[in-house]
């Protein structure tokens, strides 16, 4: 009787087991099947090769190279002594040092530890061949960005790094993931969507440790597109050398097309430093350096333009007919307003319109400025694109600052402010690229220009959309100003006399701008060569470089070198 109860209980238990088994395998079978597949099938992204960057003559400025890194997986190491002896022998590095690195970088037992980066190809082959004898050893093949010219042109190129969490979130619809690489600053960032290519992937079957067991399928990564810049490496090199030890900017642009032939901001940085963990110290110094090495001064540096600002004022004066080319003023070397004295460089005597530009006479422009008033000055400054983006194809361009007219109505704006305004001082701030563009517009008799750094994406030429307007100012006014700017170079007393050459006709305007604090002045020279083989407009700026003469000397050397290299 009691045995029967026992039997019934046993049967009930078995029935429950059968029901449980059926529920799991038949009712919920497909659910668990998908879980099982999810468990053992992984998709491993394959990074595409990033597009290369060329200069205008086809010289590589940035490319991607295969690099080999040595890693060890802590949990798979069987004999630590043996593996590190072998690594030390192959890599030619002391074992102690390798072990030290290993201890320092070890995070978790499953996370591979990088022991050496970017080892030579033949070393990598030796390691790869012996991998099976040393459990836990890994040689990872990675593609690595390379900037063969280091610091030269680094600001225009930018650099690459892992996608930051913010950017991954922002661009996740475009396939950005935290593991991917992306460009930071410069062309690398601006044209990232072309350069990066499309991520591929391999579908693999893994075991419980995530190790690959079988390859199930793959999608080939689409490499990024190469881009050809308008830069000329030769000009970059020359400019970089000329700015050695200085803080400053050299920009050279084609006067007809707006192509930037050269753009150097000093001091520069080495974009390769962002690619290896060995140079983390160097990288950190870039961010903390007082000279702000990562700042592209050409588009982000904001400075008072000094006397270069006299050019739009001069045109304004003629165009508004407040002055004629014959109007003269007497310069005693200073101008008194109430009890304040505003100085000129020296007593120029009687100056007419073109002489005043050639000699950069402050007193002449004090008079002009007071006649025009701040509103007109502001209007013409904006007309020539100052205080606005030039829309060059580089990220993070700054706008600068032109004092706004609503300020002028208030009491805060005095005549003294107008005087400062007329010689490009005060609250006025511009970027070197803005001044360059302004000069180009003057040289082109009012025709606007769009500065560009890119020529081709892949094989197709790039047409950047822009409607270039032409200023409604008669050519003759520009011609008058140009005579003055030619005088700056050609006259006996011209401010840029060092630039006088037999073989190149240079027009231009110097500028010496007071900087804040007690630091030396900023030095400017912005000019153009309208008759050269390649018609160019260029801008030299030295931050706290002292007199504008220093900028002129740099400009002179620049032209000399360009002529020597048969560019001009």
């Amino acid at each position, binding site marked *: 009787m*009691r*045995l029967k*109860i*026992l*039997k019934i209980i*046993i049967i009930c*238990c*078995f029935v*429950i*087991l*059968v029901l*449980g*088994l*059926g529920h*799991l*395998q*038949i009712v*919920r*079978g*497909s*659910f*668990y*099947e998908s*879980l*099982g*597949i999810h*468990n*053992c099938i992984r998709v491993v992204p394959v990074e595409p090769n990033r597009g290369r960057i060329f200069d205008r003559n086809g010289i590589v400025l940035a490319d991607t190279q295969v690099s080999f890194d040595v890693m060890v997986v802590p949990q798979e190491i069987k004999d630590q002594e043996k593996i590190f002896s072998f690594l030390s022998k192959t890599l030619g590095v002391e074992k102690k040092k390798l072990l030290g690195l290993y201890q320092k970088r070890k995070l978790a037992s499953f996370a591979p530890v990088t022991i050496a980066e970017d080892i030579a190809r033949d070393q990598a082959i030796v390691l790869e061949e012996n991998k099976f004898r040393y459990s836990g050893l890994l040689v990872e093949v990675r593609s690595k960005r390379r900037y063969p010219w280091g610091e030269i042109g680094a600001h225009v190129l930018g650099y690459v790094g892992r996608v930051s969490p913010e950017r991954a979130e922002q661009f996740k619809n475009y396939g950005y993931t935290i593991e991917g690489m992306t460009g930071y600053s410069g062309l690398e960032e601006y044209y990232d969507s072309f350069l990066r290519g499309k991520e591929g992937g391999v579908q693999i*079957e*893994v*075991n*419980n*440790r995530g190790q690959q*067991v079988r390859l199930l399928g793959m999608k080939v990564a689409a490499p990024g597109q190469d881009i050809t810049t308008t830069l000329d490496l030769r000009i970059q090199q020359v400019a970089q050398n000329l700015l050695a030890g200085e803080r400053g900017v050299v920009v050279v642009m084609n006067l007809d097309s707006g192509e930037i032939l050269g753009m150097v901001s000093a001091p520069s940085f080495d974009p390769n430093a962002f690619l290896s963990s060995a140079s983390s110290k160097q990288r950190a110094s870039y961010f903390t350096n007082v000279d702000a090495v990562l700042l592209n001064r050409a588009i982000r540096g904001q400075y008072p333009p000094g006397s270069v600002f006299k050019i739009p004022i001069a045109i304004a004066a003629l165009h508004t007919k407040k002055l004629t080319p014959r109007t003269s003023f007497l310069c005693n070397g200073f101008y008194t307003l109430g009890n304040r004295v505003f100085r000129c460089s020296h007593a120029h005597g009687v100056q007419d319109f073109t002489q005043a530009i050639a000699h950069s006479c402050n007193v002449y422009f004090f008079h002009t400025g007071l006649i025009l008033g701040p509103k007109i000055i502001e209007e013409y400054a904006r007309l020539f694109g100052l205080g606005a983006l030039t829309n060059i194809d580089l990220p993070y361009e700054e706008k600068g600052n032109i004092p706004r007219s609503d300020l002028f109505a208030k009491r805060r704006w005095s005549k003294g402010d107008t005087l400062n305004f007329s010689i490009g001082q005060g609250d006025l701030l511009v970027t070197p690229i803005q001044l360059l563009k302004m000069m180009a517009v003057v040289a082109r008799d009012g025709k606007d220009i769009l500065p560009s750094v890119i020529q081709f994406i892949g094989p197709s030429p790039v047409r950047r959309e822009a409607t270039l307007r032409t200023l409604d100012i008669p050519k003759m006014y520009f011609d008058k100003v140009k005579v003055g700017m030619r005088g700056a170079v050609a006259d006996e007393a011209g401010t840029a006399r060092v630039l006088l050459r037999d073989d190149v006709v240079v027009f231009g305007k110097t500028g010496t701008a007071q900087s804040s604090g007690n630091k030396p002045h900023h030095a400017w020279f912005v000019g153009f060569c309208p008759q050269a083989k390649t018609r160019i407009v260029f801008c030299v700026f030295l931050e706290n470089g002292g007199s504008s003469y220093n900028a002129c000397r740099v400009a002179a050397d620049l032209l000399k070198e360009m002529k020597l290299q048969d560019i001009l």
Partner: protein
Amino acid sequence: MFYNLKKVIWTTMIAIIVFGLIILYSASSQSTRVNHQVFYNQLLFSGLGLLAIFFLSRVDYRKYYDLAYVFYGINIFLLIGIFLFGYYALGAKRWIEFFGFNFQPSEFMKFSLILALARYFADHKPRVSAHRSWARPAFFPEFGIPLLMTLVPTLLIFKQPDLGTALLILGIFFVVVFVAGASVKYLASFLGICVLATPVLWHMMKSYQKDRLMVFLNPNIDPLGAGYTIIQSKIAIGSGQFFGKGWLAGTQNQLNFLPERHTDFIFSVIGEEWGFMGGMALLACFCLLIFASLRVVEQAKDTFGYLAGVGFVTIFALQVVINIGMVLGLCPIVGITLPLISYGRSSFLVFVFMFGFLINVGKKNKLL
């Protein structure tokens, strides 16, 4: 019919063992977490085991009657010895080394306790069954002493700690005492006390045992820790579906996602690679073996053979049910092996003795 019973027992037993070997071969085929050697060990062991059953079935089971208390005494002594000489493995002190062999005395305790209880009830038949109407059941002779006999090893095993085997031994006690005819009142009140004592037990449990219970209630509490095994096991079995993924083709098994797949969790390999069909076939074999054995035991010539036999079949059935139940996620994970299939010498050896005994019981009543 009766003659066929012998064939049925032998055939199903061998079928189960062979099936187990095939599974074990697959579980160890990658030699990663589970070494290949496991299969060859088990192969050798099963061969020797079957031989041993053959010889043991020729030993008169009444010899066990004489030796029952001796076995029991030695086993208690060994369990105490564990605390003195045993060694730790997998976080518990369960093993003892004996002439170069490692074995778990707790496994043998199942065998010894059943023998001891069977002998006790053979000597002191409960009066209830005979004189139900008037006799007041005597607590000590029919319930108290067997309970004491059970609680001593239970506590020792619980202390190791081995919750699964401890509960299993309590289960044996219930069934044997129940079948022996003790008063249901005592059993019911003891069960009540057990339930009331659960909080105390909870307090005494090791943290991993608590984790296991919590994880049983919700495996997703800690999917990579304590819940890992049961989640992977359910994925393995569920993804096997009706026909299974095929021998040596289970991804959960071959890619090493299943821990302890050669011992406690071997049924998940069966479920994954052989599907519902394989699982049902195995359950059918177990069922057949259990009921054939009960059939033999029913006809035993004496109380000792009858009760010991019922005890053996019960423990066999309990282990099957609990093991498969836990692998399916129907009951908590307690370290209980699947009889005749899981890898492990001690567990296998116990069943060798049991089947030797059972077959001999059948011989004596001319059934086999």
